């Protein structure tokens, strides 16, 4: 086994170790080992004669080889021995089986013989019995005697036969008895032989086992010796190496020691010299110091006296200090009392003021409530007033309109009937309108609407231009409803800049002209949209985080819309105008940054729309890209700085928006005036002249009417008279007359 271990060690040196920490490595090592073993065994089996490859490994396994050979030899010996021993048993077996066959055969023969015998004897017996009957028949004594004697003979014969058989059987029995004894003896001998052989075998096996053991031991011993010598050699080699090394080390050490000794000596002498020098120096130093000590002593004396005086003085001072201290203490206690009092007072005061504060806050809340109430009332009244105003207005307007209609009608009548002129209806815009005048501001779009529109526009920017136009046109009238007379046209012009700015996409330019609400909306919608998106991205910090969370499920456009809305509210941008202002500002900001800050506010505030447009186109054409995202915040701040001032102003009249007082009544007068001025001055003059003429005409007419009545009355008289005449003519009297009047006078048929 030591051999085996050795082998294992040999293999382990090169390949993964069995004792390694790593289990996989161990497994690998074991596998290798098993493979090596099986291989070795194979080689042993195959190539006992192929001794050419007798390497070190083969040699190392000599003992194992020996073991196996011995094992084989022993197995063979054992089997041979067992065979030798069992040979006896086998022989006995064969003998036994042979004996059995013989016995069987003998048994069979015997049975046969017995049967034969029985048969023959039965025949004989039957013969005898038959003869008995014959004998009984015999009467003659001699015959009877003869037959009896023959019978006797026959019986004797039968008995003899039987006896013979018995004798034979007994002989056989004796034989088999002998044989049994012989067999027994033989078996005894066999057993003895077997035991002997077994003993021999045991002895022989023991001897050979011992031999083999000796051989194996020898081989092991031999191997061990080889190993030992090898190891010893190695050991000695190592020892020698070590010895050499030690010797070398010792030599080196000696050398070093000598060196160090020399060095030490040197150092010692140097140190002694130094020591002397230092000693002399120190001696002188000591003398000097002693002198100084004397001096110091003198000064000390002096100082002592001085200090004693000082001490006295300080003592005095101390006494004084104690007195002042006590005084101060008393003062402190007094002040403490005062402080306490003041504290109490302060607490009281605080309490009072708190109560007061409470009262005041109560009052304040009450007053606030009252104020709110009042406001509500006021709003209510304002609404009612407005309603009433509107109603009154409407009523008056109706009345006035009726009057105007009447005046116009009369005018038309005058013109058409009296003057015979073609009458033309003056343009009367206000007639179409009803209700009180609305302030124009409300007509403006809010920033929110503007953005949403913009975004929508941006979305549909790919659509046909006509659509865009239509939308703009549609938006126009909406805006145009509010401002009445003073805004003759809040027109929206839609340009199609074919030669303009961008090739593929249509661009809508918007320009609106009005009294106040003119915004510099010359920026392209797309631009604005981009700007807005930029703003949305950059000014995200203005949006509340809560809102962002709420927005997350929405669509992107809607999200950006809401974000922009919140950003604008944060910045205070409310109207569309402001949005455009912002966009414009941004454009310009970018522009002006290059030229380094002109007065931006002045520029965009004063600039005429034409100029702006020009500017815009010029600014837009070179660069389609927008303000740089990084500048957005700066620009935004600048914008709010500029924008906030006007807004503050605007905020100052914010409250007036609440009531009706803010309603502009300057236009009302003009409105009503316009109503009054339906008939112009020239026409009135015409009317005056016409009146006088008509008056004259009237007089003539009245005269004529008088004449007409006269003629009528005369006609009536005439007719009456004619009637009478007729009567007279047609009377019978006439007939009696020779000359009737009718004949005389030719009466004209009426």
């Amino acid at each position, binding site marked *: 086994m030591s051999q085996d271990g050795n082998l294992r060690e040999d293999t382990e040196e090169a390949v993964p170790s069995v004792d390694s920490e790593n289990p996989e490595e161990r497994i690998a090592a074991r596998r290798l080992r*098993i493979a090596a073993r*099986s291989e070795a065994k194979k080689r042993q089996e195959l190539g006992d004669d192929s001794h050419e490859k007798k390497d070190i490994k083969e040699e190392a396994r000599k003992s194992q080889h020996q073991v196996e050979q011995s094992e084989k030899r022993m197995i063979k010996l054992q089997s041979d021995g067992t065979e030798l021993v069992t040979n006896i048993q086998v022989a006995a077996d064969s003998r036994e089986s042979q004996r*059995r066959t013989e016995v069987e055969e003998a048994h069979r023969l015997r049975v046969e013989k017995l049967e034969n015998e029985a048969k023959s004897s039965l025949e004989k017996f039957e013969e005898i019995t038959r003869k008995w009957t014959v004998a009984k028949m015999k009467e003659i004594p001699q015959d009877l005697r003869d037959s009896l004697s023959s019978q006797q003979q026959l019986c004797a014969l039968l008995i003899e036969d039987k006896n013979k058989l018995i004798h034979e059987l007994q002989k056989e029995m004796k034989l088999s008895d002998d044989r049994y004894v012989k067999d027994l003896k033989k078996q005894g001998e066999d057993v003895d032989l077997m035991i002997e052989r077994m003993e021999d075998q045991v002895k022989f096996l023991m001897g050979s086992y011992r031999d083999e053991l000796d051989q194996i031991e020898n081989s092991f011993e031999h191997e061990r010796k080889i190993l030992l010598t090898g190891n010893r050699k190695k050991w000695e080699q190592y020892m020698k190496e070590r010895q050499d090394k030690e010797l070398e080390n010792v030599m080196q050490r000696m050398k070093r020691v000598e060196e160090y000794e020399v060095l030490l000596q040197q150092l010692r002498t140097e140190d002694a010299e130094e020591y002397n020098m230092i000693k002399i120096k120190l001696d002188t130093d000591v003398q000097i110091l002693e002198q100084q000590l004397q001096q110091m002593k003198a000064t000390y004396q002096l100082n002592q006296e001085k200090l004693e005086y000082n001490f006295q003085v300080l003592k005095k001072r101390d006494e004084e200090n104690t007195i002042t201290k006590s005084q101060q203490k008393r003062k402190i206690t007094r002040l403490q009392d005062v402080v306490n009092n003041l504290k109490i007072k302060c607490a009281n005061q605080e309490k009072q003021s708190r109560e007061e504060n409470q009262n005041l806050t109560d009052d304040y809340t009450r007053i606030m409530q009252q104020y709110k109430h009042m406001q509500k009332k006021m709003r209510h009244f304002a609404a009612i007033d407005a309603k009433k105003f509107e109603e009154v207005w409407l009523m008056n307007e109706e009345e006035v309109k009726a009057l105007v209609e009447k005046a116009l009608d009369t005018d038309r009548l005058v013109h058409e009937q009296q003057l015979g002129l073609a009458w033309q209806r003056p343009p009367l815009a206000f007639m179409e309108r009803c209700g009180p005048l609305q302030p124009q501001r409300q007509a403006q779009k809010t920033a929110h609407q503007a953005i949403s529109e913009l975004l929508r526009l941006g979305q549909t920017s790919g659509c046909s231009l006509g659509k865009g136009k239509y939308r703009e046109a549609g938006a126009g009238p909406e805006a145009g409803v509010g401002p009445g007379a003073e805004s003759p046209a809040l027109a929206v012009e839609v340009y199609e800049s074919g030669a303009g700015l961008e090739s593929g996409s249509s661009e809508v330019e918007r320009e609106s002209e009005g009294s106040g609400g003119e915004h510099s909306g010359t920026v392209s919608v797309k631009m604005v949209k981009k700007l807005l998106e930029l703003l949305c991205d950059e000014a995200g910090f203005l949006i509340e985080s809560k809102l962002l969370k709420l927005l997350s499920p929405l669509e992107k456009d809607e999200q950006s819309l809401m974000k922009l809305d919140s950003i604008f509210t944060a910045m205070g941008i409310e109207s569309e105008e402001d949005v455009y202002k912002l966009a414009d500002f941004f454009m310009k900001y970018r522009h002006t940054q290059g030229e380094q800050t002109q007065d931006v506010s002045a520029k965009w505030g004063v600039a005429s729309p034409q100029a702006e447009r020009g500017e815009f186109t010029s600014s837009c054409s070179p660069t389609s890209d927008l303000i740089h995202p990084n500048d957005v915040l700066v620009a935004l701040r600048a914008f709010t700085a500029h924008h906030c001032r006007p807004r503050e102003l605007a905020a100052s009249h914010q409250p007036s928006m609440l009531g009706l007082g803010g309603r502009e009544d300057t236009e009302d007068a003009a409105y009503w005036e316009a109503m009054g001025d339906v008939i112009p001055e020239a026409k009135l003059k015409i009317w005056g002249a016409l009146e006088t003429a008509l008056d004259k005409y009237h007089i003539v007419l009245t005269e004529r009417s008088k004449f007409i009545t006269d003629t009528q009355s005369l006609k009536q008289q005439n007719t009456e008279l004619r009637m009478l005449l007729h009567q007279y003519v047609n009377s019978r009297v006439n007939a009696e007359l020779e000359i009737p009047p009718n004949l005389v006078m030719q009466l004209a048929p009426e």
Partner: protein
Amino acid sequence: MSKSPGAGMYPPVAKLNLAADPRKMRRIIAEDPEWSLTVVPLLSNLCLQCIVRNFEEKPILEELLPRHKDYVLERLSPSLPLQVTANLISDDGYWKRCCKQRWGLCDVSSYGHSWKRMFFERHLENIIELFIPDATDPKTVLGMVPLCRNYVKRLDISQLLPPIKEPQKSEDDDNSDSASDMGMDGPSMDHFDFGILLDKLSHLEEFHVVYRVKGCGMNFEWNLFEFTFRDCESLAKALKSCKTLRVLRIHQSKVDDEKCRQLVNNLLDHPSLRELNLSHNLIGDRGARAIGKLLNRSKLESLTVYDNNIRGPGAQAIAYALAKNSSLLSLNLRLNRLGDEGGQAIAQALLKNRTLKWLHLGGNEMTEPTATVLSQVLVQNNTLRSINLSCNRLGMDGGKVLEEGMCHNSSVVECDIRLTEVGQESDYCISQVVRNNQNQAHTKHNTEENLAQTSEHY
């Protein structure tokens, strides 16, 4: 023996004692490990000695410290009554002393290296072997049961005494012929009834019994060697009741067909029986048929029925069972009368069987036809390890056929063809093949061992 100078201080009595006992002079007595300088023994030792003395009345052992226990066990007398010691003492040292005292020659290795088991087995065997029916009280046996039931694993009964005959009977026996005839219908010749014992021994695994009398010498009578029907019946019942039995051996007991059938009937479906040995009996074909039936209704691994009277039909019955069997490893039919009829049947069965490893057909009057079938078996079957055909007249031709079969075989490592009249050439060839097979098996065994070792490492 010179006196030490300080000896003078001792009183004269001590001096006398010193002179008388040289041991007192020495301070160290190496050969006595119990010796100590202290003259007064320890109280604990005294107590222990007392316990040892009165162990029979008051057995105190388990309560003691291990050291004291050893002390007591060393000193207990081997002749203490078993009722006290049997279930109390488990120390092997004590039982070793008991065995040595009683029998002198003891081989503990055959008793599982347990002296206690050895003691009780041999004790019980002695009691049974000396049991005389009707004369001995069965209580002597039954009394032992509670004491030894936990330790007895094997019973090897080497003789069973018949009941003592009445003096008148012995007078009648003078006419030996009439006595042997009378024995059957005369008073019972039954032996010890195992029915009262076997079902109580809960650890019994092996049971060997011989119905005969040892060392009768000149008092030989045939009826001393009688295995009666009633014996058989009671034994069969007892065997059936013993569920732990693994090995059963009944030999040299004149078991004939009827008794064999009775035994087998009771052994059918036995839960643990592995080995059955009915050698040196008178079993014929009918008994063999019963055994064949038993083969497939039990878990038998080894069947030994050599030196019986089984012929062709019986062998055919066994072969029929063997063909279907899948548990039997060893079959011994030595010294029967199978003949070619039986041999061929067995060989045919081996063509189908895949478990049998050892087969002994020595001395069975088989000849060449069997050899031909067997050679076929050798070619086809590769589970058979050992085959013994000695003392069969196979002849030259049979040898050649066998040789041919062996050439194609690689599993048989033992083949005994002594005294079969085969040619030397065949003999040599067969032995060559067998040797080859042995070598292969050996190397395989070695590699397996190596593998086992390495797997143990993991």
